[in-house]
């Protein structure tokens, strides 16, 4: 019940405000720790040398890319079933972060591919699936921006993300399967298995850092969205900083 209380933007806005600093600082600390482990503690890889350290950015980013989309799908269900405005706002707030992580995974991957496979890009299973994931994000963002009426863009976006989410696993596995001819992905797979404990630790810490970052940024953005959407509601007019802003201008 108390959860439902916070599904109202008016009550969620201040809560989010209070949470942001915590997640923000956590993200920062974890990131420092993770990078320290990754860059200094973790041993050099016997066959790849120093390059492999990209993994500490690459893999967490790749994971987040997929997870955030699933989280959005979850909110989509809420938006469609319970018609909660907030969940649509959360989707809108998360999409850019997800897209950025996806791009980051692609980019770091490409950078990594150069030394290890001798090419920035191969049509490897994971690369391709990640690329498609990026398209799904871009599609969602393009759609909700193309529809100016918020009521409509919310529903449309939610529907799209749902349909898309059905596709994510299909894409993921099918591409693997189609790729049986290809060796590219196996590199990352085998690497994943025989990974030194410290490497794993570093990756996990970094993954956590990304989580915290995503949450913090998501909350910030959702606060902005709430203000923008409900600007002519009384409770927004009552907020102090808003008043100061408007009086200043």
């Amino acid at each position: 019940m108390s959860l439902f209380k916070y599904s109202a933007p008016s009550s969620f806005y201040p809560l989010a405000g209070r949470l942001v600093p915590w997640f923000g600082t956590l993200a920062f600390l974890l990131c420092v720790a993770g990078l320290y482990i990754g860059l200094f503690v973790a041993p050099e890889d016997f066959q790849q040398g120093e390059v492999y350290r990209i993994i500490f950015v690459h893999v967490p980013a790749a994971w987040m890319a997929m997870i955030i989309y699933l989280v959005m799908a979850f909110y989509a269900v809420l938006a469609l079933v319970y018609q909660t405005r907030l969940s649509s706002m959360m989707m809108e707030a998360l999409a850019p972060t997800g897209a950025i992580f996806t791009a980051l995974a692609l980019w770091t991957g490409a950078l990594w591919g150069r030394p290890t496979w001798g090419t920035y890009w191969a049509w490897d299973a994971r690369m391709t699936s990640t690329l498609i994931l990026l398209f799904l994000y871009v599609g969602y963002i393009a759609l909700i921006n193309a529809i100016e009426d918020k009521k409509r863009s919310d529903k449309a976006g939610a529907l799209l993300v749902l349909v898309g989410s059905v596709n994510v696993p299909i894409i993921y596995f099918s591409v693997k399967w189609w790729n049986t001819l290809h060796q590219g992905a196996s590199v990352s797979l085998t690497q994943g298995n025989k990974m030194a404990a410290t490497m794993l630790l570093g990756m996990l810490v970094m993954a956590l850092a990304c989580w915290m970052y995503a949450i913090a940024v998501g909350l910030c953005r959702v606060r902005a969205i709430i203000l923008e959407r409900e600007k002519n509601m009384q409770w927004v007019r009552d907020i102090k900083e808003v008043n100061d802003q408007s009086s200043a201008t």
Partner: protein
Amino acid sequence: MSAVLPTPDLLLIPERGLWVAAARDVKLAMRSKGELAQALVFFVIVVSLFPLAIGPETALLKRIAPGVVWVCALLSVLLTLPRMFQQDYIDGTLEQLVLSRYPLPLLCAGKMAAHWLTTGLPLAAVAPILGLQFGLDSRELAVVVAGLLLGTPVLTMLGAVGAALTLGVRGGSILMALLVLPLYIPVLIFGAGAVESTMAGLDAAANLSLLAAMALSGVVGVPFAVAFAVKISLD
């Protein structure tokens, strides 16, 4: 005549809605001089662009044949998607569809059926000829056709969602393509995969059955999704 009380719902056969909508759209497609033919010819032309662009080596062409045929099928379906709702949206028919006494999902299903009959089916029918040009043998051709017969319905259904979502949005046609294509990719992979595995002497059943599964699950869910999308596009 007017203001007779509406036929009690017992007398209204909802299923007729599917038929009404389908018949109407098929008639429209027939009416506008050979719209069928057009979807086909587009398919044929685009496919034949590749030998022109890539050069005539038979081995190479045969190697890329499955991919090319499927990508082109994808694109020609894509190009016909606007037809499904755009016109109805502009001239106000869509409103009347939503307000019709027949359940909207059924009407949408009817429209999708019509679209498949006038697009996917012809494509599957003409594919073998193109396959021959690329030097596929009869077994591979059979798989191409089977794949298209199972895959194009999925393309129509996913496309319908995209088309409905982008109604009345400017730059709609291309935005739609942007939404729909990523969703099409699994179909593409299974479809082309089926042919390639046949070429590699393996069994295509796995890929094909996956396509069938997608088609079946689509038939269950998609009409409701489309109906929903249509409704919000009008509000």
